């Protein structure tokens, strides 16, 4: 019990420290680097010209479609991990259930494929 707790304490500390370690050099750089801002220096880089129109425009829906498909697959993937973990001890029924699940997953992929959700434009 303490062991598991210790493990997660380790991960917890790691989560806190991991962003801090790279922040350290950034902080040092912020202290010792020169700071002479001016309007042109801070202008958005767009090949040397003023940018035209807003950057944060409404963007093509295609990206979201891929995002959605990914989400479906990613969530289902998480369910597969326990199955794979216990695989060597599973009986035939659980084995078949796992396979069925994968087939459903594949079916989803081919459905999306058939609906042309996987085409870029």
């Amino acid at each position: 019990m303490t062991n598991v707790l210790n493990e997660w304490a380790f991960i917890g500390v790691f989560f806190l420290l991991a962003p801090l370690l790279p922040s350290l050099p950034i902080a040092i750089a912020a202290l010792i680097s020169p700071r002479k801002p001016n309007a042109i220096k801070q202008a958005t880089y767009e090949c040397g010209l003023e940018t035209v129109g807003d950057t944060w425009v409404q963007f093509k829906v295609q990206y979201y479609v891929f995002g959605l498909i990914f989400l479906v697959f990613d969530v289902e993937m998480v369910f597969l991990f326990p199955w794979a973990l216990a695989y060597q001890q599973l009986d035939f029924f659980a084995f078949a259930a796992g396979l069925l699940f994968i087939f459903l997953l594949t079916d989803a992929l081919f459905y999306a494929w058939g609906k042309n959700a996987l085409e870029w434009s």
Partner: protein
Amino acid sequence: MESRSTPNQFLRLGITLVILAVIGGGLIALLNGITGQACLNNLSSCLTNNGWNPGIAGFVPILLGVLGVATFPLLVTILLIWVERKFAARIQDRIGPNRVGPFGLIQPLADVLKLLTKEDITPTGADKPIYNLAPPFMVASVLLIWAVVPFTPYHYGVDLEIGAIYFVAVASIATLAVIMGGWASNNKYALLGAFRTVALLVSYEIPLAMALLVPVLLAGSMSMVGIVEAQGAMWFMFMAPIATLLFFISSQAEVGRAPFDLIEAESELIAGFNIEYSGMKFAMFFAGEFMHVFTNGVLMAILFTGGWWGPFAYEAPLLGFFYLMIKSSFWYFISLWVRNSLPRFRVDQVMNLNWKILVPISILNLIMMALMLRIALGFEQSAGIVVTDFFSALPRTGFLLIGNVVVLVVVWLWLGRQGRQQRQLEEMNRFSVTATGD
């Protein structure tokens, strides 16, 4: 517009040095205090005996462990920059860094020093908090992977029972960092890069995780330590070559390295998501990427080529660490080789490759592996084989290889058919000249 004068700069440098000295001195004092008690073996109980609060005493070894595990990849990265530049130089028939230090070895340090003193420019209109958070996140996501890396049979950050899922989870923080950086920069090139990331990095996580399922399946464990130990008899690379390849390709894509470097494609998007970053923040993105490539090498070594396994790894843990590094470097060099040889994909081609080729293959591969493993288990049970060494693992390897061959044949036939169809389509679409005049 002159905002700060030079003396101020020196003052800030002085303050920084003092702070660093205090931190360093404190650490040394702490270590001295600890080692003076000669209780390295069981630090927390020793500290408790010396009158420390048990809660804090239990925390100290964890903190030290975290620092140790997290600093190692950061230090390796500094060397990697040199290695990568030299290696690329060799491939491209040039010399590479050779001025600073012997063989240019100190070059990365010089670069770091230079970047430290570079002005940090935040573009107007940037979303500042997010803009500043993105670089540390990038590095953090890679560092976090190292928490579960088994360096030797006895040395690892932590042996998480769900190591594999943990890896998938923390690795995707990098995607988040890229999107944060790209979006917050308020730059169209950065935004395009960030959007490509959404499509690319996210998609390649599917075959990556699918390939990752295979070692989990074979080892019957999700812990990285367990997976390495399960490879004592036979490396998973020989049992599941297709999964190895899938994992390698997708991890190459996850890092955004050529031929998948379209998120920062310097010839199209100039630098993609990190176009507006300068100074140390840019360096962090850069370091994060380098570290990620090597981390992928380490993961390849752990998951498929037996981690620290090698002759006398149990007897001499340092040797195990050495083996791990050798294997990781091998994969790392292959990744560099690929990077320096191939042109870049286009965004729609990358998505096609993923969703229409890699994902179906990875699903098929997983099914075949599951089936063949079941058959192999049945065979082992009936023949009374217990997998303990190389020879007893041979039947299982044989069965799994048959599975791989089946997958290969199916894929070959299927891709061949698809390729022929596509070629016909392309020939139809590809305009053919009829009129030639002069």
